[in-house]
């Protein structure tokens, strides 16, 4: 089954918890990321509107924390996401969730 992360970027505050949780639990040195944040903005548009959007992207170094014993059984990034805007699961299941709220990002990470 294909695994995926569903990213509700509306709420991502850019707190970096996903990045550091991943680095610490996987012993990645600084500069290597299983998930890396992109920060867009802030920039203004129209009348008083602002783009300020944060988007985590999962790299090939992501292991989905397979085999790791944790309190929640979730990947470390998902468990610690402060905005609770990350969901990990089966790709087809998350596709259904995305239909309910389309303005999200769904990133498949293959079979890990």
């Amino acid at each position: 089954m294909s695994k995926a992360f569903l990213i509700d970027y509306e709420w991502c505050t850019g707190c970096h918890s996903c990045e550091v949780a991943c680095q610490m639990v996987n012993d990645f040195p600084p500069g290597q990321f299983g998930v890396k944040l992109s920060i867009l903005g802030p920039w203004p548009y129209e009348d008083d509107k602002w783009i300020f959007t944060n988007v985590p992207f999962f790299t090939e170094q992501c292991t989905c924390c397979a085999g790791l014993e944790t309190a929640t059984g979730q990947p470390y990034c998902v468990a610690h996401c402060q905005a609770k805007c990350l969901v990990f699961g089966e790709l087809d299941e998350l596709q259904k969730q995305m239909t309910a709220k389309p303005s999200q990002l769904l990133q498949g990470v293959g079979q890990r």
Partner: protein
Amino acid sequence: MPNEGYTMVTHEKPFRYLSGDLKVTRGASWSGPGCHDGCGVLLYTNAEDKLVRVEGDPENPYNQGRLCVRCLALTEAVNHPDRLRYPMKRDPKKRGTEAFERITWSEAYDFIEEKLRYYKDNFGAESVVFWRGTGRDIATYISRFAWSYGSPNLTSGINGIACYAPRVFGCASTSGSFWVGDYSQQFADRYENPQWKPPGTIAIWGNNPLISNSDGLYGHWIIDCMKRGSHLLVVDPKCTWLAAKSALWLQIRPGTDAALAMGLANYMIQEEIYDKEFVDLWCYGFDEFSERVSPYTLEKTSEITWIPPEKIVQAARMIAASDGFALQWGVAVDQTTEALPACQALSALIMITGNLDNPGGMIKPPELLNYLGGWGQEFLPQEQEEKRLGIDKYSFYRTGVVSAAALTVLEAIEKGEPYPMKAAWIQTTDIITGTGPDPQRAKEAFEKLEFIVGVDLFMTATMMALADVLLPAATYPERNGIRVGDGCQRGETINQAADPGECKADMEILLEMGRRFNPEAWPWETVEDMYSYILTDSGLSFAEMQEAAPVFLPYEYHKYKTGKLRRDGQVGFNTLTGRVELYSTMYSRLGLDPLPEFYEPTPSPYSTPELYEEYPLIIITGARDWMYFHSENRRQEHLRALRPEPVVEMHPDTAKKYGLTEGEWVWLEGHRGRAKRIVSLNLGLDPRVVSTSHGWSHPEAGPERLYDTRELNINSLIAWEDMSKIGVGANYKVMLCKIYKVTA
């Protein structure tokens, strides 16, 4: 079982259990290193009792499994090779050099005891000042030590008590209590609690709560509430992420918050959209208040604050129409020169809209211990209390403020008046790097003292420059403790998981030293006995609390209607008039202005136009980075990698005007000093305003360079004299500067 009214959460496992080869210890975080919060954590240790991993505790309703980067990377602080590992001593003549020699704990305790007895016997206990950092674990115990030793001179070192205290004491003076936004944090079942509802509007005013963490607030509760329907009104000079997501962002001119609040109040009164029933029944002095705010017309308020009149109207209407209004305010209000009348202006907005003691409004935080008031003041003899530095100058310091005035202490050290100062006990605070103004002046003053004890986790600029005896403190995973801090308190224990080596808990050091001077004040065999004593009201001992925590305190809304806010059981608020005082009878009795007021910041384009010609930019300091709590965390390599150097944020037009480009080093120079920063462009700032963070050092620069703090400490731009004439508030936030490239 805890006493009646206390509620618990269900735990699947005991607080210590095994997970594979690792031991897991459940408990709360705090400090150090740490912050003001007390998140639930699971600490993983290996067979050698070394901390190897930190996980958020999903069972703890406070953070619900979430953690920020500082606790996620905690192993890098706890296991860092630079940790202080044993007590050390240095000849005072060799301060500033690496001439420390290792000693044993008993040698250290005996030596300190001998010296502190000498100063007490020959110069009075008041000749020793006790200096701590911002209030966390340490606050409670160091206050008891200072007072039981006999010294009234205890200070957090923040000038004008300008952090949290002005808002707390300001609210307590006018409404009988401090109030915090209601995010359901008082309930074990949180957002599911049937009595609770999300605030209709949350005003994020003068803080960036996603990163900062005062008032017991876990910042991402704001996000939880937004998902449940709360709208944001953000008052900030910068377009923060919350500002970008808000229903309304007011880009305020720094330091003019009180004027905005008075303008909002005036508009609500003129338009009669305030809560008339609440004002009639529960507020005192509405007419005087209305008259005081009446000059703050939309035009005048707009002129002062740089906010367009139509946005002020929008904000006033948003607050007035809100079903539950929470004021999430912060240090930008405390850190104005006259913080008390500014706090009064802002808090009036919750008062005239009736948002006190109500679901989704502002709540009175339940407490086990009055943490800001210190612990054990009864052990300070009255004649010693009368010697507290600042108490003669500032009448407000007799009304619940227990600390000495930091500036008055500094002046006493410098001048030997009103009496000679001889020694200092500096515990887990980095004066030269962190939160004191003009660090060079503070350093030179402390250098005059004959004897200085330091306690810290790492060698810091302050310890290197000043300590004669240096004691190594344990980090929070290496010791037991309880989290009784700001905001809503819970029964929370900090549980030892890792081996501290020779390091000792701050509390253990204070208990050991405390009982040498005043055994009556320190009757406990162990720190755990001491914690049990503090937890008495809960009905649980420390050991029982370790298993049960978190334990939530009894809580109910609308206590002012049932007589439960007042000791005499009468309905109303805990003030002299029984009402919320828009006109403060307490301030009036103390000879202070009984009504809110706005004071133009000094310096500013309007108050010091000549300075503004030479220093043409407004600079705001204290912007928060995700990775750092004040001066902490720069040694944690995964955190440092995310923000390697301090930046000054500015609008691209500002950079262009001064010929600057992204990424280059610049000097920020004010009329009192300068500091180095790297340019970072940000469209979310007014081109007339630049913003930077504080607390910077370069650990890699080494101790004898004081970790480069001389060139990095932004507080070099701030003077100790930039403080309130009534002792409450200091301008840490709003300065003027010019910017130029660093050459060679």
